[in-house]
Every structure is written in C-alpha cells, then in structure tokens.
C-alpha cells in the first residue's frame, strides 16, 4: 500500500465532490431538525478547500501540513458548529502525520483516531445524542479493534465505515440531545441527523480512496 500526499489530496477532492452531490440532501435533513443549512455550510467550507487544492497545495507533499491547512481553511470559511468540529478533526489528525509525505497503515490509524477523538473532545457529545459522534464513535471502535486484530488498515477502515453507517442510521430513532435541535424532543424522532450523515460521507470518501490505492 502506498498512501502519500497525492492520496490525501484525492481524499479531500472526493469529499468536496460528495458534499456538492449531497448538498441539498444534507440541507433537507437539517430542515427537519434545525435551520436547514447543513448542506450549504458544508459546501461553503469544502469549496474553500477546493480552492486550496487547485492552488496552494499543488506542490505540497507534507500530509500534516495539508491536513492542518484543510482544517484552518474549513474553519475560516464556515465558523458555525461544524467549523470547529471538523476543523479540530483535521488539525489533530494532521498533527499526527506532520512532516510525513508517505503514510503507513499505522500513521493512518493514528490520523483517524486523533481526528475522531478531537471532534469528540471539542463537541462534548456522546453516542446517543444524535450527532456526528453517532457515526464517528462506532467507526473508531471498529477501526481500533480490527486494526489491532489484523494489522491491515484498509480492511479495518472498511469495516469501520460499515459501523459508521449503522451508527448514522441509528440516529433516526434517537432524540436530539445536543445543539439547536435538542429542543425538539419527540419531534426529532424519525429524522436522520445531518451531522451524522456528513460524517459518514467523509468516511466513505476516504474508503473509496483506500480502495483505489489497494487496486492500483
């Protein structure tokens, strides 16, 4: 397996595209629970990342620098709630791989562990609160367990994405406990959380890059 800055940029590019494709869907989910702008906010942030991909990062090979810069770029473009959350993920993940242009399975495992734990710490949400943590925590649990068992990162990550998907879907049956939608009570039932959904899309985008690395 070879995962370099090129793949990291391909991952970010893939997130940009999946967010654009799902922009309306994310906003629609958010309209049922919040102010209906999750797709718009994500799009603004990832378009700013796109701009960096097209220019500043063209010749950048330090995975840490790219990830940290992605976090800062996203945060500066959106603010909001998702800004600090996803930014913290990319900043913490980037710190783990600073100065590296090639990442091993171990590096990627550290990246995602720091990414998800950073978001958890920033948002102070728990599983069951109907947030992005409902996707990210089960994904992290599976990743840790499977990577420790097999030592094959790509395989472990795919299983993690499957757990994340289950977690995302579980938010339909949860009551909102965080953020603006927490006042909804029973009315939040039946609706999938937009943050849990965008988190899944990001994991899924990474998985697709891993798959292409594997088959290359």
């Amino acid at each position, binding site marked *: 397996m070879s995962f370099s800055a090129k793949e990291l940029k391909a991952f970010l590019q893939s997130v940009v595209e999946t967010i654009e494709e799902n922009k309306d869907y994310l906003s629609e989910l958010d309209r049922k629970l919040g*102010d209906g702008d999750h797709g718009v906010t994500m799009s603004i942030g990832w378009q700013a990342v796109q701009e960096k991909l097209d220019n500043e990062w063209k010749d950048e090979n330090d995975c840490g620098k790219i990830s940290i810069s992605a976090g800062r770029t996203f945060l500066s473009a959106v*603010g909001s709630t998702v*800004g600090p959350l996803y930014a913290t993920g990319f900043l913490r993940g980037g710190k783990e791989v600073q100065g590296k242009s090639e990442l091993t399975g171990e590096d990627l495992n550290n990246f995602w562990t720091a990414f998800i734990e950073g978001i958890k710490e920033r948002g102070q949400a728990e599983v069951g609160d109907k947030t992005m943590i409902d996707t990210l925590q089960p994904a992290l649990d599976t990743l840790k367990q499977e990577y420790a068992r097999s030592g094959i990162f790509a395989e472990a990550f795919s299983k993690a994405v499957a757990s994340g998907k289950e977690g995302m879907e579980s938010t339909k049956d949860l009551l909102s406990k965080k953020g603006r939608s927490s006042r909804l009570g029973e009315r939040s039932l039946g609706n999938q959380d937009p943050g849990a959904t965008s988190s899944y899309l990001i994991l899924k985008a990474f998985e697709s890059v891993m798959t292409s690395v594997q088959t290359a």
Partner: protein
Amino acid sequence: MKKLINNPNRVVEEMIEGYAKAHPHHVRVLEENGRSIVTAKETKEGKVGVLIGGGSGHEPAFMGYVGTGMADGVAVGNIFASPPPDPILEATKAIDKGAGVIYVYGNYAGDLMNFGMAAELAELEADIQVGKVIVTDDVASAPKEEKEKRRGIAGEFFVTKVAGAASEKGYSLEEVVRAANKANDHTRTMGVGLSPCSLPQTGKPSFELEENEMEIGLGHHGEPGVEKGDLQPADQVADRLVQDILADMPIGEGEKVAVLVNGLGSTTKMELYIVYRRVELILNEKGITIHRSFVGDYSTSLEMGGCSVTLIKLDDELTEFVDAAADCPMYVQR
C-alpha cells in the same frame, strides 16, 4: 421565496460592503479580516472593549449595534452560522484598549466553540484578557431548572446595551462582565412565529406552518417551539407570551421593567404596536412600572413573520445603563 439579491453566495459580503459605505463615520471593516467590523470613532484608552457577533440574517443584530454606548466591534458569520475564530480574534485585537475585551453572544453550540477558541487565542497570542457573557433569555428553549441551556434571542439587545454602557462608564472588565451577566439574569423573552424565512442559498422555507397556524416559542433560526396551534388574536398571543415570562421570572407590584416588542423580519410596526398595547395593559394591571419601551425590529430572522416580547427587570444600576445614550448606525438613543 423572492429576494432582492445578486448572488446567494455573496449576500453577506455585499451587505457588509453596503453597510460600511453607508456609515463611514460610524464603522469600518478591518483590513485583516472582511468579517470584522469595528467602530470608526476614537475610543478611550483603558475602556473595556465590547465585542458582539453571531450569524448574519438577524439585522440589525449584530453589526447594527456597533457604536458609542453599545459594541466596539462585531464578528459577522454566514447566515445563521457563528463566525469562525479569525474575525473574532482580529476584532478583539483592534478594539482592545488595554483593559480587556468582553464577548457577548448567544448560547448556541457554534458560538460557544468559535468565541471560546477566539478567547483562548486572544489570551495566548495577543495577551488580551477576555470575559465571556453568554445570553440565555429564551424562556421557551429549556425549562427553568436548565436555564444554562436556553438560547439567546432578542434579549441580547439589552445585555449588549448594559455591557456597552457599563464599559463607557469606565467599569473594569470584571465589573462589565458582572453587570452584563446581571442583565442576562434579569431578562426573559418569549416569541411567536407566524411564517417561515428562507435561506438565500436554498430558497426553501426553514419550517412549515399552515396558513392559519402559529408557533409559540419558535427559535430564532426556525427551531421548533413549544406549541403549534391555531392563530390567535394579538391580545391572546400577548397574554400568553407575558404570562410565560412572568411565570418564569416573577415581577412584583411596584417593580420596574423595560419592554422590547421585537419584530422577526416581516411583521409590520402596526402589528408590533398592537401587541405592545396589550403588553402595556397587562403590566399596568399588575402594577409593574414600564420604565422604557422599545418597539421595532431589533433582532430578526430574515423575513420570518412573528414577534417576541422581552422584559428586563430593572434595578438602579440596570436602569442607568438602559437609559444611557447610544449612537449606532441601526440604533440611536438620546
């Protein structure tokens, strides 16, 4: 929904451009960050800086309240979204006069994180002391026992007013924070929504209400409220709003308040004064003295229909600050 705009993705930028051009004697946009606006007036050395901010779409809140007697700076977010730490940090540096800066903002997850990160950075990078006052006036958003979970809505106007007047008076950072926190503790708001607003980028209504429906306790961004029901006459709505406020914050006979009847965007002054008429009647009957009244659009949600009623219970100190003069592009008091 129809809007008089150019590019939905540039509404905030174009609004700020227009605002700065219209009021060059009052405000200026920082070169360091286009989302940081500060007062164009000279402020005294040693004065505590007052910084406000939040999402766009609530105009006159928050950028309309930069000026003498109110805020020294504002960080402007995207529509209904907290600004990121950078514009908050840049505005903090620009307005610090050596006495520290107070942040006044509403209790939303995004604002808590972004203003919190900015405060840490201001202390680390610029050695500026920051005090934070989080506004929680929306009665409908959480039960009394969990007041710290409540959202900040129109009552933020009073908290900003008190912080601004206290800092103008020469209070220390600690004292400005104390006074602003007291203002927040003494302030309650209840709102009613009649029709939704739509984000420029999606064009879709933020929530659904039937033609004959209203929603009590609706949030500032269309967050669902406590009760959906048939539209009632203004008097009954006003009764309900005031009743919920007084149940939450008892105000005795002979006590003094300031009243704010706030339009949410598309509600006419006519309707707001009809509501005020009833609010005055109820308070009068209870022997509560109305010291000062504010009726108009003070904190909106784009073109949302409906209004909110805010009461701030006044002691001598808060009375002085509510009465203090203010001179901002969107709010002047003599």
